[in-house]
């Protein structure tokens, strides 16, 4: 049995976007990878409602939306912990929920983490560009519905009798904490920075600054003796690369960052820890450990 479902956004939230696994194979053209920042929470949400892991879903950042469901639906919320209301009833993360036609889902207070994922069972009728719904910052028209605004409508061919799943404990899932240790490997230009800068990098906690978005997180710490850093001939950037900017501030580049850059790449956060990073918000603290 299937039916047509429309989600109508009465409030958009701070930054609500459609995401999936992103784009691979277009980076030589300057196209960033995009895709859900916390991939394990995203694939968990789709897994619970019985979707394929690359089905589009909503990435909800720090302040969430209000969404009206005009038909019956199966949903799951994973990742950051918000107070999420189904009409006036609080619903739990990581569980399957059956909604009746006319239900309003409202994201209220954020309790922990930064990004939540809302999956809805069915086939999302949204425009993809180069295999993905992930919005491109400079080219919004490529995926016109992917940045959610007040009044946006998303159509889903919902399969009500989908096969739903329980939370799969085997999928690694990021802990939601304000202070995390992230594992890094030395980056290509690690040896171009001073010993004191290295000591500061590993010996101190680094706070995430307010300049933190899907392109990257600028850290508020200043690495000493980092002023002699020269710009290099532009070279490839991948999610998790830690660059040292001219002012000596480290910046962690994420999925929407440009594909090439000229600052020294001092470290790379291993892919397994990027989901954890995606759940950090301004003011949270990172300690780096070398593996």
């Amino acid at each position, binding site marked *: 049995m299937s039916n047509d479902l429309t989600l109508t956004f009465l409030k958009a939230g701070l930054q609500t976007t459609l995401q999936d696994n992103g784009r691979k194979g*277009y980076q*030589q*053209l*300057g196209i960033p990878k995009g895709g859900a920042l916390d991939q394990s929470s995203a694939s968990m949400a789709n897994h619970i409602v019985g979707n394929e892991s690359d089905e589009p879903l909503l990435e909800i950042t720090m302040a969430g939306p209000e969404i009206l469901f005009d038909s019956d639906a199966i949903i799951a919320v994973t990742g950051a912990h918000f107070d999420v209301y189904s009409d006036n009833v609080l619903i739990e993360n990581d569980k399957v929920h059956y909604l009746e036609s006319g239900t309003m889902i409202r994201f209220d207070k954020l309790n922990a983490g930064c990004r939540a994922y809302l999956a809805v069972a069915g086939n999302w009728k949204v425009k993809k*560009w180069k295999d993905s719904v992930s919005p*491109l910052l400079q080219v919004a*028209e490529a995926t016109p519905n992917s940045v959610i605004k007040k009044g946006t409508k998303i159509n889903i061919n919902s399969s009500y009798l989908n096969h739903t799943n329980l939370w799969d404990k085997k999928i690694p899932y990021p802990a939601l904490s304000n202070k995390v240790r992230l594992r890094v490997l030395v*980056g290509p230009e690690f040896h171009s920075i001073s010993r004191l800068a290295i000591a500061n990098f590993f010996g101190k906690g680094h706070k995430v600054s307010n300049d933190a978005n899907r392109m990257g997180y600028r850290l508020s710490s200043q690495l000493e003796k980092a002023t002699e850093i020269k710009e290099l001939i532009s*070279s490839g950037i991948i999610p998790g690369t830690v660059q040292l900017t001219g002012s000596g501030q480290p910046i962690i580049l994420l999925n929407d960052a440009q594909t090439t850059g000229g600052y020294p790449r001092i470290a790379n956060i291993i892919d397994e820890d990027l989901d954890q990073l995606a759940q950090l918000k301004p003011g949270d603290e990172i300690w780096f450990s070398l593996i």
Partner: protein
Amino acid sequence: MMKIRPYGSHALLINFEQKIDLEIHHLVKGYFNAISEFEEVSYQIPAYCSITVVFDKKTTDYEHLKSKIELLEIEPSKTTAKTTTIEIPVCYEAAYAPDLASLAQELNLKPEEVISLHTAETYDVYMMGFLPGFPYLGKLPVALECKRKSTPRKQVKAGNVGLAGQQTGIYPSDAPGGWQLIGQTPLKIFDPHRKDAFLLKMGDRVQFKSINAETYIKIKQDVE
């Protein structure tokens, strides 16, 4: 010589001699094309003198991929044979070239000399980056080498043609930028609605052709 090193947990970095040089560009192009055939590679980022190769850890690891790349025999001369040259019309008239007059003065040239130098050369697309579809073209004739603007513009228009260092480039979309703007093309070098969204790719060659405002407007109407 080429050096390969790990780059994060799922990628490796191939570094060639670190300079902007045509022979190295042909090596990058040759390796990029050969590695594109590897199924275990998710994506690559070719740059001036490096290639970032991101792989699928389920099907390979760093050591295996490194050996496989080292076994490739790449002859740069062979990669130049199939090159396409694309002609890009540019209007260099004052209304389309906000920095041409001041730049010409800075370089001790007349604006017409800047235009004839810029159109005389055929440029190679060394790499794409910065923005979706932004081509880094090189190298500029020595007489045109220049610094970026000290204060970047908040908004550069799609189609603006700029100079920076030894490079020239074309803005694929409206974006902030610090390049010296000497003209504008009516062509859309990046259009997500087009089947072939990108007019240029790494390895192509570009020839700029000077057009007047009238022709600019006519072509602009044709492409819209």
